[in-house]
């Protein structure tokens, strides 16, 4: 693929995207429209994240891609390969070593540093979309800070289910101003959104980029008497014993036996390398 420019996109396009990113960082949580390009992967498969990564990467960067927290899921493999081919950057599976991390549906367990950038793939950037389908109307609601409807949704949840029944893509208010969709990460990850690293969000099909700069206040919407809870399965990881990580549930046999393992594969691996052992890990080691 040598006939393409560094990181696939031409320099003019990358400059256009960088301008959008800078604007997004200047107005945390605000969705900046940008002229998303057609990428050689389908819309909805990370084209927004890929464009943001392409505009962010430099030849010195080390790149990590995860999908569902794992480096080896097919779409993560495919995107990593794309940048290996078009940008020739170093890639890694170690969160620690990465300078740019592209992710779908998870925030890594490890605390990110100020010299790291995390890029989220976003399918529907508009947190109000399923309350109000019209872009013209939702943009007005954001500009006038009319977010009552968002709480009506949470109210309806509680009146119907006795609890707020949003489990992922849980809406947040950024820097006391814009309500933002943190992308479909589990709500377990919401507290991590206040971090030292730069967080960029790219939605290709919907042509939007938004950002959370380091140390920005990010509050998950809730009620005083029904406070937000960052929940996860009530188990330790069966491989590394971690009690603080988000878990995947795996069906093990026809009898429906389950095991729980870290969704963040790098976190689990580094813990096991450090000697931590979970309930089902011994046989493996034996």
């Amino acid at each position, binding site marked *: 693929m040598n006939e393409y420019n560094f990181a696939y996109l031409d320099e003019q396009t990358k400059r256009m995207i960088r301008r959008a990113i800078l604007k997004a960082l200047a107005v945390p949580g605000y969705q900046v429209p940008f002229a998303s390009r057609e990428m050689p992967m389908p819309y909805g498969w990370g084209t927004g994240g890929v464009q943001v990564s392409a505009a962010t990467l430099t030849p010195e960067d080390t790149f990590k891609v995860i999908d569902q927290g794992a480096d080896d899921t097919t779409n993560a493999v495919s995107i990593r390969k794309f940048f290996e081919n078009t940008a020739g950057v170093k890639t890694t599976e170690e969160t620690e070593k990465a300078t740019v991390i592209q992710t779908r549906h998870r925030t890594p367990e490890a605390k990110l540093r100020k010299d790291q950038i995390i890029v989220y793939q976003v399918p529907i950037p508009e947190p109000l979309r399923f309350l109000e389908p019209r872009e013209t109307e939702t943009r007005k609601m954001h500009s*006038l800070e*009319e*977010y*009552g409807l968002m709480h*009506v949704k949470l*109210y309806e949840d509680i*009146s119907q289910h006795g609890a707020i029944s949003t489990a992922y893509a849980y809406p947040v208010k950024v820097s006391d101003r814009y309500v933002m969709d943190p992308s479909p990460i589990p709500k377990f990850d919401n507290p991590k959104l206040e971090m030292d690293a730069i967080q960029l969000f790219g939605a290709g099909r919907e042509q939007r980029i938004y950002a959370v700069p380091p140390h920005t206040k990010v509050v998950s919407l809730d009620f005083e008497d029904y406070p937000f809870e960052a929940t996860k399965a009530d188990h330790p990881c069966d491989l590394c014993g971690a009690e603080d990580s988000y878990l995947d549930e795996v069906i093990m046999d026809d009898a429906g036996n389950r095991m729980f393992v870290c969704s963040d594969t790098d976190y689990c691996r580094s813990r096991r390398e450090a000697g931590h052992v979970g309930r089902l890990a011994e046989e493996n080691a034996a």
Partner: protein
Amino acid sequence: MTPLLQVKGIEKRYGARIGCSDVSFDLFPGEVMGIVGESGSGKSTLLNCMAGHLEPDAGQVIFGTRADGPVDTVTMSEPERRMLSRTDWAFVHQHARDGLRMSVSAGGNIGERLMAVGDRHYGAIRDRAIDWLGRVEIEESRVDDRPSAFSGGMQQRLQIARNLVTGPRLVFMDEPTGGLDVSVQARLLDLLRGLVREMGLSAIIVTHDLAVVRLLADRLMVMKSGHVVEAGLTDQVLDDPQHAYTQLLVSSVLQV
């Protein structure tokens, strides 16, 4: 006493046709103004101009705001106007479905304005919703039902509760009893009269039904072809109409 609302020279045209023209009046706190006329008389156009749903071609609608005193709402910014319309103003639509969220529970409908101004305690919001359901004579057990399961009269009462929950200082009503059965209308009127008295509401009610204004309005304006042809105290205008058109309106009601 300073007026709550001063309407000055409002005019709205649709091309060459006059919607309403040269309408001026003052509304004082606690006062209910009725605007009557046939369909096409310009009364709904006038109401929508005053409530900020239509932009008048000329004139001012000066509202006594809590913070800054009298402000012309025609020239204020859209965010300010939208803020007004979810705090100090309320608008009761003729058709309840235009004023309700049909897919949101009764409690959610009433709670929306509270949440829009920052209430964040679910239990408190729900208690106020239940309280308001009681005040508009809807059973507490219906709090989690959607308005689509309500009768027309109940929907209209729910719309009124949804509007009044934040204690607005001015309520616009567009044919609030229109489209309801006569017996349902009577009950709604009774309820409205009780609320107006109890809360000391200031309101502007547009209707073609003289019985509505007789019961609710302190003062009355009669409109024809976009112009106000007669105005005065309700009883005075209805009992001793001066303008030929008002006489016709009153007599046609008496004949029925």
